[in-house]
């Protein structure tokens, strides 16, 4: 491996899947077989993915760390890099640096019920943890996934949501904003905080992972509080702008915390102790 911190590994694109009108997921594998063999990561970690000539962007590794042959990431088409990534096809080459960040404490969550709450493009960083838990099924209690998007067409990984719900002790609650439903929509209609409240999820021995727009998190937290979840049992993943991913370029900090190195995963209790700078 190069000692050049900023030089990515080259990855072969295996598969590109269109999730929504502006979201795609991509499966890639290391070109270098030895690197592929040695590579490991924790779910919840992220990488910097490059489209050469356009630049690199930060995305969660949304595949499970138990899957050994490839990595997946998912992005929404919003800027220069994602415009370029939007054009890639299987067989193309992209770059990857990582894994970076702390990841989810999956070991600490063993023996507990898992509650995953996500909105919109927040599914990928939840998906990796769901798959990890399913592949280590005996280590975890009940799994509840509450996932919402503006409309039915904005739901990502829709097939997998159905697949998860067929697993034992797994409940998937899908919801769309009022007006976003289709005639044959069987899921919930409503905003995530109220859907979570209606879902009557047992929080007795649970941890929650809540990822989504700040406004969604803000209104979901009181619901979780009423359910009896403690702040230290509610986790989230921050998405601050990053360039280096390794704590040097100076832009991702929230107060004294460098999100790229000391995050992106925090408990709500940790977040409350750092300044509102994210």
């Amino acid at each position: 491996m190069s000692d050049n911190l900023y030089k990515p590994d080259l990855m072969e694109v295996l598969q590109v899947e269109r999730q929504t009108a502006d979201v795609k997921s991509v499966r890639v594998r290391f070109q270098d077989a030895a690197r592929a063999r040695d590579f490991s990561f924790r779910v919840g970690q992220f990488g910097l993915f490059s489209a050469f000539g356009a630049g690199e962007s930060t995305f969660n590794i949304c595949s499970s760390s138990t899957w050994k042959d490839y990595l997946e990431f998912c992005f929404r088409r919003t800027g220069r890099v994602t415009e370029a990534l939007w054009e890639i096809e299987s067989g193309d080459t992209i770059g990857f640096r990582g894994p970076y960040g702390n990841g989810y404490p999956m070991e600490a969550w063993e023996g507990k019920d898992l509650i995953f709450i996500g909105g919109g493009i927040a599914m990928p960083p939840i998906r990796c943890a769901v798959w990890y838990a399913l592949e280590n099924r005996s280590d975890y209690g009940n799994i509840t996934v509450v996932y919402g998007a503006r409309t039915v067409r904005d739901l990502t990984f829709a097939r997998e949501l159905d697949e998860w719900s067929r697993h034992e002790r797994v409940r998937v609650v899908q919801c769309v904003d009022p007006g976003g439903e289709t005639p044959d929509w069987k899921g919930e209609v409503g905003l995530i905080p109220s859907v979570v409240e209606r879902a009557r999820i047992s929080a007795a021995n649970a941890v929650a992972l809540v990822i989504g727009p700040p406004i969604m998190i803000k209104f979901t937290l009181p619901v979780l509080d009423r359910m009896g979840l403690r702040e230290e049992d509610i986790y989230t993943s921050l998405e601050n702008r990053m360039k280096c991913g390794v704590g040097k370029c100076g832009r991702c900090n929230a107060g004294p915390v460098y999100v790229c190195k000391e995050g992106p995963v925090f408990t709500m209790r940790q977040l409350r102790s750092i300044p509102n700078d994210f």
Partner: protein
Amino acid sequence: MSPIISAAALRELIDVWIKSGKQVAAPVSIAGRLLYQRIDSSGQAVLDSALRPANSIKDFVFPRHERLFGYRIEGRQISLTDPKPEERDQIVIGAKPCDAHALPILDHVFAWGSNDEPYERGRRRTAIVALACTAHDDACFCTSVGSSPADETGADAMLFDLGNGSFELKAITAKGRTLFTQHAQPPATEPRPSGSAPAPRFDPAKIRAFLATQFESPFWAEGTLACLGCGACAYTCPTCHCFDIVDEGSAAEGARVRNWDSCQFPLFTAHASGHNPRSNQAQRQRQRMYHKFAIYPEKFGAILCTGCGNCARNCPAGLGVLGVLEAIDRQTIKTDERQPVQT
């Protein structure tokens, strides 16, 4: 006692360095302004212990624009090439102590968790010969951040201007000793002129106390109104080190480069979604002050400031970090404004 070296001998030595293929940088006078620049003859160097350049020496170890690697796209295949590393020895002569001091401070972050190879190489190949200050101006405040006009931190060798056309030479590191092996002359007998230290400009304890409790203070909006949001302070600061990474080139080939960036620019933290955690100048100024005087000290045990005063000297709005610090120093912290201390 350290040896002395005449100014003439020093210039001869600089030319020897240059002729032997070393890169040499020094303060140079350009249109009435002193700036650190690479030189190709000792005659360009302005070795004046009373003058402070308007930029910093960080450009020589952490360049404003640097290639991280090259890329070449051929069909679906991509090849990456490491840049040809600059391995020549480099000497910065006549660095101000406040510039030299910045490098050991920067070492912390560039080695934090992982080694930043380009920076590390820049450090490895560079020797710093600092020139102790004998004068200060209205913007100098080294003494307020725990430094002094003759601070040796970060220097491989120190020169002290004896005021008679010669310098007392003190080698500090092995690298510094190697530079001057041929010039071990008779020891200095005259006493070093004592540098004129700037009077304290603010109370560091008060700054600490303010930052510890006043993150949400209205001061940040009121006290930073003059800031125009340029990067003149950051880019001439010896310790500011934030950077951007971008690809430059054609669709066929190009390079990923790293460029200086500044927390004072709105786009610095703007998310792709449009959300910006620091969407106004007050928040950006606040970040700058916290980074330098709270976050960096907490993480690495060093203030991210050497008191060189370039921020104030170069600020078109007469503010700079110094201006904000002085304004904080004038604040009275009202108890009802206190915030819970951060953990």
